[in-house]
Structure formats: C-alpha cells, structure tokens
C-alpha cells in the first residue's frame, strides 16, 4: 500500500505538455473563482481614500495593484479554458513538401550541427533543410556541405532574423516552412505531430513549445525554463483555446501561402514572430498549438544572455502594443495579445513594491496609513495567497520561486525597454548567446545590487530611527524583497554557468536520442 504523491512539474523531455500535467479543470476554476472574489474583497477595501497616507504613493500603489489585477484577470481568463488537446489529425494525401529553415548568425558550429542532423532526420514529409547564414561563415558553409543541406547566404543583412527568413522564402518553394533556432534540436516525429492541422486550410501556423535541455546545469537556464513552462504550458494551451496562440519564432510550422499573404515576416520589429502573428490573425488566419515537446533547445545560461533575451522580447512586445491596439482583431484575440505585451510592464510594479518599504523606513512616508495589521492583512493576505495558489494550481507546479526571483531581479529590463520604446530608440536584434559566460557578471545586475543596498540601508536606518512594530513590518517587507533580489541575482553574483564541454554533450545527447 502506498501513498505516493503525484509529482507535478516539468514534463519529461519526451513528455507531452498537456497529457501528464494538465490539472483537472475544476480545481483551477475553483481557484479562479475564489481569486476573483478575494480580489473584489481586497480592492473594495483598498480603494478608499481614507486609507491613504501619502496620496502620491497611494496612487502609485493603486495603479500598480490595478495593473497586476488586470494581468491576473487575463491569466485567469486564459487558464479557465485550459484543456487537453487532441492529437493532431493524421496528414492525408501525398507527403507534403517542407522547407526547414535554420537561421544562424555567428553561432558556434557545435551548437548548430546537432540541429542540422536532427532536421535531416525529420519524418512525415519531403524535407529540405536550409542553413540561413547571416554570419557569412565559411565554417557554416562547410557544415552545410558536410550534411548535404542547403546553404543560403545573403549579400546584405537586412531585417535581422526576419529578413533572413524572408530571403530564404524567395529562394525556396516548399508548401510549408519550418523554422528552428539553431540551438533547437527537433525530434524526428516533429512533422507527424504538427502537419495534420494543416488539413484545415485556414491554419497559418502550428506552434510547438520551447524546451530547455540545459536547465540541469545552469541556475538561470532552470529558472528561465520554469518561466517558459508557465507560458508554454497552461498559458499557451489557454491561448490556443481562445484562438490567440501566437508564433514564438522557433519550433513552428508555417503554411507558405499564409506567410506570403502578409508579405513574409515583418522586418521592422524586434519580435518579428509576435508582429507576424498579429498580421496573420488580423487577416483571418488561424493558429494551432501542439503542447508536446517536439524540439529541445538551450535556454540562456548566464545573466547577460537572459537579460539580452528579455530585453529583446520586452522591447518587441511593448513596441507591438500600438499595432495590436490599431488592429482589427476580434476582442478576445486583441486582449490576449495585449495581455502578453503588457506583461513586460510588470517590472515597474516590482520597482514600486521594493521602493515602498524604503520610502517608509528612510523617509517615513507610506501609501497606506492608520490601518492596523489585522485590517490590512485580512484583506490583502487572502488575495495574495489565492493568487499564488491559482498560479501554482493552474501551472501544475511548473512555475518555481527561482523563476519568480529571476524575473523580479531583472525588473529593470522592463523599465529600460519601455523607455526605449517610448523614446523610439530602436534596439538591435541581438541573438541570444548560446554559450554561458564563465565567472560572475555584475553588469546585468548592477541595478539589482543598487536596490539590494538601498533595502539594506533602509533596514538599518529604519531600525536605528524607530524600532516600532510598524518599522518591523516594513523591515520584513524589505527583507522579503532583499531575499527575492538576492535569489534572482545569485547566479550572476557567483558566476554560475554551463561549461562548454557540458553544453556540447547536451546537444549531442539530443541528437543521439
């Protein structure tokens, strides 16, 4: 007799993201219902000027809380429709002709080679693999020759990855196009699991999850993977159900005619996939999502890589918000896009929450005053617990504290990204580095360190000035933020990264599998 637990969490590499770990729907819906009620309970108390102490801070807190609730509401709306997806219908008729694009830009050969090998082994279609080399590397050309795959090199690099793919579209003719980032190794049945959806002529693309194989060796990769698991798990399943799954740039199959109908990938966006999806959905095309790990890739292994990736995503998605607002998408799709785009504003709320105890401890001002612990906790506590519980239940335990901490410790990325978008400072398309850097990386966390120091100083000043219970309460808040920041920044502080030898072995292992 046993009472062995059901372990939820990351799917096995060969797992299906909607088979083993989709929570039953009723607990999710119950959690969401509870969350809604408790949110009302909290806000009905919060929105009361009698509770305001410093009006400016109170206003800022209110805005931040409203933003969070809007994000939360979108999440709840998405996850309540989470459901298992049926297996793709089988492809009928003659084998389709598929072009596989692997865009590269100065990545190491040892990273790209396993992807090429795996791509050549794809089953279920007439597959032609093309290496799209914007790095103009002779090594890549030799690699392509060695594996007998196509090699496309542009004379002028224009439009970054989008331009590279568009260029290749002009030089190929397959009915379908698959895009793999050069570090994403597909499984041989990738096409078997996706092509069947194209039996519906309205389907423009079929997206599959990004899965990081290197999370066992890098703390940042692991945390980043947990973030991905939340997105490619419950959120993407929900988006797909709402007909709003967008393309994520890799591990995706396109119908060529759909791409051509919108003129290929938009080249003026940092997140060409996001912008392309808006275009396609606007024109009535549909998207599908296969919640099964069909390709295994590498996540960012160090803080610089992670920040670089997040910066590009944030800037691209924030920059895409006006386009979404102007679009003629149905409301449900527009809301889903807005939800994903505005997520990259959440760093502002993190900064505000961290600043509040500092303001109280150092300057003695606070947003809410004349309220006892009992009263505040009675309203805020249930809301907070329910929110966490909803995320935990809906994600099946995939979202971890490390993921949360990494996100919080890089809050400044969102702030900088918004600044760049607002002031129209177009960033360059920076390919996420594929090898982690050795040693500590203080540069990407200097803002984090500054806030950590500020929190520490605030604790010292607050306690030295007035060791009252109220100060202790704010000290605890400051300590909470300090812990979260430290956890997020820890890998960069201690220089946690993957060794190249391990990295090669990861991809080799994927190929062998």
């Amino acid at each position, binding site marked *: 007799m046993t009472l062995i637990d059901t372990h939820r969490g990351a799917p096995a590499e060969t797992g299906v993201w909607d088979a083993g770990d989709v929570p039953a729907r009723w607990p999710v819906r119950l959690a969401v219902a509870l969350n809604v009620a408790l949110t009302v309970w909290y806000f009905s108390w919060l929105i009361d000027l009698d509770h305001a102490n410093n009006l400016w801070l109170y206003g800022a807190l209110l805005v931040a809380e409203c933003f969070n609730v809007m994000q939360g509401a979108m999440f709840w709306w998405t996850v309540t429709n989470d459901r298992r997806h049926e297996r793709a219908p089988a492809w009928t008729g003659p084998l389709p002709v598929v072009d596989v694009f692997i865009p590269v830009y100065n990545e190491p050969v040892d990273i790209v080679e396993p992807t090429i090998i795996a791509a050549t082994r794809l089953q279920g279609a007439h597959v032609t693999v093309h290496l799209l080399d914007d790095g103009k590397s002779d090594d890549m050309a030799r690699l392509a020759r060695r594996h007998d795959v196509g090699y496309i090199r542009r004379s002028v690099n224009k439009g970054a990855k989008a331009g590279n793919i568009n260029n290749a579209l002009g030089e190929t003719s397959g009915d379908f196009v698959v895009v793999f980032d050069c570090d994403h190794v597909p499984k041989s049945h990738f096409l078997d699991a996706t092509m069947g959806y194209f039996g519906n002529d309205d389907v423009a693309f079929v997206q599959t999850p990004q899965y990081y194989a290197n999370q066992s060796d890098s703390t940042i990769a692991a945390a980043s993977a947990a973030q991905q698991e939340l997105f490619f798990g419950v959120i993407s399943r929900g988006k797909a159900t709402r007909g709003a799954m967008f393309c994520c740039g890799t591990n995706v199959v396109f119908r060529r005619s759909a791409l051509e109908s919108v003129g290929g990938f938009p080249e003026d966006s940092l997140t060409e996939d996001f912008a392309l999806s808006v275009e396609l959905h606007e024109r009535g095309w549909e998207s599908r999502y296969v919640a099964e790990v069909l390709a295994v890739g590498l996540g960012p292994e160090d803080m610089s890589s992670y920040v670089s990736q997040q910066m590009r995503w944030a800037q691209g998605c924030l920059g895409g918000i006006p386009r979404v607002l102007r679009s003629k998408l149905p409301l449900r799709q527009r809301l889903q896009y807005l939800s994903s785009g505005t997520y990259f504003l959440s760093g502002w709320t993190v900064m505000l929450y961290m600043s509040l105890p500092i303001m109280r401890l150092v300057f003695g001002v606070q947003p809410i005053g004349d309220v006892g612990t009992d009263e505040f906790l009675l309203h805020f506590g249930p809301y907070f617990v329910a929110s966490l519980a909803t995320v935990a239940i809906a994600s099946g335990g995939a*979202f971890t504290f490390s993921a949360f901490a990494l996100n919080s410790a890089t809050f400044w990325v969102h702030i900088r990204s918004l600044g760049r978008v607002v002031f129209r400072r177009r960033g360059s398309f920076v390919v996420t580095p594929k090898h982690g850097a050795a040693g500590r990386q203080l540069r990407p966390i200097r803002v984090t360190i500054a806030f950590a120091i500020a929190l520490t100083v605030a604790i010292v000043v607050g306690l030295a000035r007035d060791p009252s*219970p109220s100060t202790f309460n704010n000290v605890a808040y400051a300590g909470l933020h300090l812990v979260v920041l430290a*956890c997020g920044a*820890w890998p960069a502080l201690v220089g946690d990264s993957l060794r190249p030898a391990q990295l090669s072995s*990861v991809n080799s292992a994927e190929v062998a599998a």
Partner: protein
Amino acid sequence: MSTIERIDERSPSAGTASPTRTSSAVRPAPPALQPTRGVAWTVVPAVVFTATITILMTDLGRALSTAVATAGFVALVTMSSTTVRSSTRPTRAAIGAAAGIIASVGAAGVGAGSTSAVAAQFALVWFVTMLVTGRFLRFRSDAPTDFEASRSFQYDRLLLPGAATVGLSCALASAFDGFDRSATIIAFAVPLALCIFRASTGDLPSRSSQLVPTTRAALAGFAGVIGAALTLPGQVPSSALPVLAGIAIAIAALIALSTPEQIVGHVLRPVHSTGWLTPAALLLVIGAGGTGVTFLALAIAVAAAVASRSRRSASLHTPTPSAPPDPSPSSSRRIVAGLTLIGFAVRTFTHRGLWLDETTSVFQAKKPLVDMVQFIGETDNHPPLHHIVLWADIRLVGDSEFALRLPMMLMGAALIPMVYLIGREFFDRRIGLYAAAFATVAPVAVWYGQEARMYSQFMLLAAISTYGLARILKSGQRRYWVIFTLANVALVYTQYFGVLHVVATVVVLAIEVYRRRHTPGMHALLRGEMGSIVAHAVLLAPLVPFALAQAMRNQDEGFGFSTTGITAGSDVVPPPGLDGFLTNLQWIFLGYQPDDVSIRLVALWPIGLLVLLLLLGTPRRTSNRILLTLAGIPMLAVFGASFIAAQSRSLAEVRYFAGAVPIFLVLLAAGVGTVARSRRLQRVAVGSIVAVMSGALVVQQFDTDNPRLYQYEEAVEQIRDDARPGDSVVFAPQYFNYTLDYYEPTIPSAPLEDGVPTAGANSVFIIEADSFADSDDARNLVDAALTEFVDQGRSVDARYTFAQVTVWKIGPAA
C-alpha cells in the same frame, strides 16, 4: 513494495538503507559522546570551584543542591564541548553545542538569585572559553579566568540570552567545517569584549535594557564573523554558515529591540552627557547595522539554497537527486535518546512557582480519587484523566513543585521521540531528527512540559495518535489501530478540545479512503476506520454524562462551554482574528514572549509571504496535506468558535489546540528539508532555528515581562518574610485561596469578598492577583479595601510588585 519506508517517496532509492550502509562502512566511526582524556583536568576543578562559590554565597541547603545541579551541568557542558571539539560530523558537533548551551541556560534555573546567576554564567563562560581554548589554544585549566569574567556579570542575569547567543554562535561556528578559526575567535572576542566593557562601566541598568546592548554585542560579533569569513579566501563559497547562522542573531536582535522606550532612554542619556560616541550609542548603531547585515545575509543564504535546489531539481539528464541520505537507524536512535535527555533536562529547570490553575489542580488531586472525580464534575470543566495522573503522582512522588510537575516533564520529554517518529513516518529519519531537535527546545512545549496541567499530556497523546495514524496508512496493522484509538480516547479524557484532533484524524482517514477507492487496500482501511469509530464511541461513552453534567452546570452559571470559566491570563490572550492567529503562530514556534516582543514578531508577518513564495514549484506531498489537516482543523476550529462567540476570546489560545504543536514542528522540519536541499544547508538551517528557539526559550523562561509568568510564590514568600504572629492576609479574587493553601497554609487568610478585617493591632496583607478573567472585580475589591483601611486609620506600610501580583502591607491601626 508492499510496505514502503515513507509515506512519500521522493525517489525510488530514497527510502532504501543500503546507500547509508555502504557509506558508513567506509567512513571512520564518529567519536563517542563522552569526555576524552584531559577533560578531567577541567571538570574536577570546575566542580569544586562551583561548589565552593555556591556554599560561600548562600545558605547551606540551597548551596548544596545548587552545587550538585551545577556540577551536573558542568559535566554536560564538558561532554558537549568535548563532542564539539573532537567531532568530525557537523550534526554531532551541533547537537553537542546545543546541549552545552542548553545546559548552561538550564543552570540558571537552579535556585534563585545570584547563585544561579553565577552558576549559569560560570558554566556558560566556561563552556565558551573551554571551547576556544580547547580547540585552538590548547589551554586546559581556565577556572580562575572564568571566575573573573563571571564576577563581572554577577547579579546580571539577563546577560544570559545575549551571552548564550554568543556562545551558540561560537559553537556553531566552530562546529562546522569550512569555517576558519580566526572567524570563531572574532565571533567570541568581539562580543565578549563589548560585554566586559559594558559591565565594567559599573552602570548596571535594569535587566531588560541590559538585554539590548548584550544582544547587540552578540550581533556585532556576528558581523565580525561575516567580515572575517569574507576576508578568508575560499571560505565563503564553501560555507553558508555565517550567513545562515545570522538568522538566529536577527531574531535575537529583534527581541532585543523590543523595548523602544529603554532604547531611547539608553541612547539619550549618554547623548546628553557625553555625546554620540558612547558605548550605548555605538552599540545601537552596531545593532541596527548588524540587523541589516543579517537580513542581507539571510537573503544571500536563501539565494544559495534556492539556487542549489532549482538547478538540481530541474535536471533531465541525471536522475533528480534524492534528499541527503538518511542517518542510520542506530545513530538516529542515539541522537533521539540524547535529545530526549536534553529535553528532559531543559524541562526540569524552571524557577517559576505554581500558578492558579496548577494549585487548583493540586487542591483537587489531593482529595480521595472518587471525591476528586466527583468534585471535578461539579466544579470544573475539564475531563478527569490529567487529574487522575496528578492524583497518583502526589501519592507516589509527593507534592513539591518538582514532584507535581514531574509527570508533565516526563511527557514533555517523551514528546521528543514521538515527534521524531512522526517525522520519520511521514518523511524520513532526517526530517524526524530535525523535528525532534525543534521539540527539544520549542518554548511552548517546554513551557507546558513544566506546568502541572494537562497540556503536555495533550501534546503527547496527539503525537501518539498521529504516529498511529501514519502507521495505519502505511501498514494497516491492527496494533496501530489500537494505539491510535486509545491515544485518541485518552486525549479526549485529558482535554475536551482533544475532540478536534480526533475529528481531524477522522477527516484524514476519510480522505484516504476516498483516495484509495480504486485500490485493493481501500476496504481494509474503511473497515478499520469504522471499527475505530465504534471503539471511540464505546470508550468515550462513560465520559458523556460527565461532560454533559459539567456543561449544564456551566450553562447554569452563565459560562457554558463557550468560555473556560475561571481562566487566568485572559487579558493576554489576543482577540480572535488575524492578530490573534499570528500571535498563536508565534507562540507555537517561539513561545510566550513579552508583549512588546510579541507585537514586533507578529509585525514580521511578511516573512510568511516569502515562505509562500519559496514554496512555489515545490512538489505537493500527501504527507504535508495530512499533517496540515491534522494541525489546521483544531486550530481553525478553535479560532472559528472563538470568532463566532466573540465573548470567548480566551479560547483563541494555543493550549486549546496544543496537539497541533508537535505537528507544526514536524512541518517546520519538512519545510527545511524542502527549501534547503543540501545536507549542509539543512543542518545550518536547523541549527539556526534551534538557536532562535533557544533564545526565545531563554527570554520566555527568564524575562519577568512574560505575561504568562505569575510570581505568586515570590509574593507569598515576601509576606512570609514580613509577617509577624497575628498578621493576616486578604486577597482577591477568591480563587487565590488555592495558591495560598499550597504555599502558606499557616497564615490566616480570607477572600476580600468576605469583607475587610476590622481595626486591629496586627498588620494585614492584601494580595491582588492580576490577569484574571475577573481582574476588574478584584481591583475594585482591593481599592475598596484600601479605602476602608485608611478610614480605619491604618496606613500602607509597603507595596510589593511582582509579575501579575501586587501585595500591600497595611500597618496596625493607629
């Protein structure tokens, strides 16, 4: 496998013993827990020296008992410090260190006044000195030095918490490998130097304010440790000790910072006289800075733990590493035995006298058995089992304070192995050991383990029931059904609130039956549950008329079961609500603290949010769910009832769900095992928690601001010293007669309800006991009596104030 080692399996190999056996075969045997050669050099002169001091300083009888007790402590300290010094295993060293500190602290409980202070300080300083010198300097005889140091601290008992923190810090620092001796020496030297400097100023402030600079000195010491560690190349990455151990200091500092008015007074006074650069101001700055550093350290430590956990748990290419291997059964048994002995020692040392509820129980238990049961049925609102135990105890052991409390001390000690068993059954031996370590020093468990009331029995029986339940769920053997049922029944016969635990176990069983509805084992479990329920009903049937009679009588008297009737301490029970809930959580883990400390600890509730965040992504475990159900249902039921019946605020009290305390301790241990995955981090975390609990225990036991402390004995002693033949005592409220009967049955006494004595040639002592449910009535009675005495031409010759009790001496009529 048909019978699994644990209820939860983290990995297929996690429960097997073979890896442990294999590794232990190649690992050198750890040193035994016994003094090594050369220790006699220090033990003998120390014992002789201590005994000499005590004989010289007090009356012979007390001196002898003190000397004997202190000698025992010294021996314990010696053994523990020897273990620390010679141990190659951190756990053993940490336990040794903890034992040493506990023994040192315990020494303070021997006797009263300066003797115990000297003894305790001697033991403590001796321990630290011996540790440092024995480990690094290789000196052997250091008694004279100790005496000088301890003399400096004479009469300053509350130096103990700070010094204990210092000692424990040093011990921990020494105990763990990867930590350099220079850091330890700094840890020892800085606070000690500050303490001596502070004491040598000759300004010995009040006890509470002394706590502040001393603890801050300890904190400064830890800042020194961290600083030293940071300067040692290669040390920091390999050891998270300094930062994690700093958690202990953070809490100690928070406790120390709990007296703002004293802090202000302490700072302002020197500021006015000599400017900011005074020791007190310096200590204030160091204290606040140290707290900041400690929080930073906490952040770094948690970050290290989380990083290690997240990286490993996400592994795809290698199997998810299991938790650190379990200790072997034999070593676990030895450790648990040691902890039980320490736990018993801790529980035996208390200086507080009996309080009202205890003397009431004694009064009842001195009656013949049948009369007693009948009397309880007619006048009390508790079931009789605890009184029966007390009845037997009085006849077998006696009615001294120690004898009266002995059964609960034993049950409190027995709780430690039971907690271990619960941890082992629901998780593994490692978690069981952590939980047992917590139970050894958990302040609230110690408090009720020293009280001649039923709450220690409550905890033990609930723990036995929980263990039985675990075994039932794993093996389903009949004998565990019997154990489970008998424990539950005895629980209800001990305290009516035990019903809530029984209900929780029924709920757990029902859920398990449902979970196993598709398995072959479901029918057996269902049959067992049905049988157990019937057995419960049959065995509890005789209690029903007894309880109903009590309920009806209480109802007639206006109490009902919504209040506990005559209940002391009602004004220190927080009102039902979140504040009360948080206060009770604080009581569960940190015991009864002075009000200003409690308020600050409760204000730290955002740390709870952090804990919730840390649990994100951790696997859901059946064991956690079961234990949370067992602990949560009684607690929430008590709070729910208390909340609904707003007039019964005294219900919202940890003792009414005391059965949840051991379960919470197991959950705490499991939490450590979940958040910190490496063995070292777990041990450091456990050591830190034990240190925090020990510090809280010391404050609980020795701080007279503890609202649960009633110095009735001291008050009666004062009257005894002052009274002359013919003097009399009046008191309010009337229930105080039980206490007077116990401590001073010879002086004529009467409750104030019976009226004020008329003018006479003798003195009258008025006793007003505070913190009773009807303390306002008592105060009114006393005020009226004082007025009447003045009208009689009498004067108030003296007024004595003790914790929760005031004594007036009214002179003879003019």
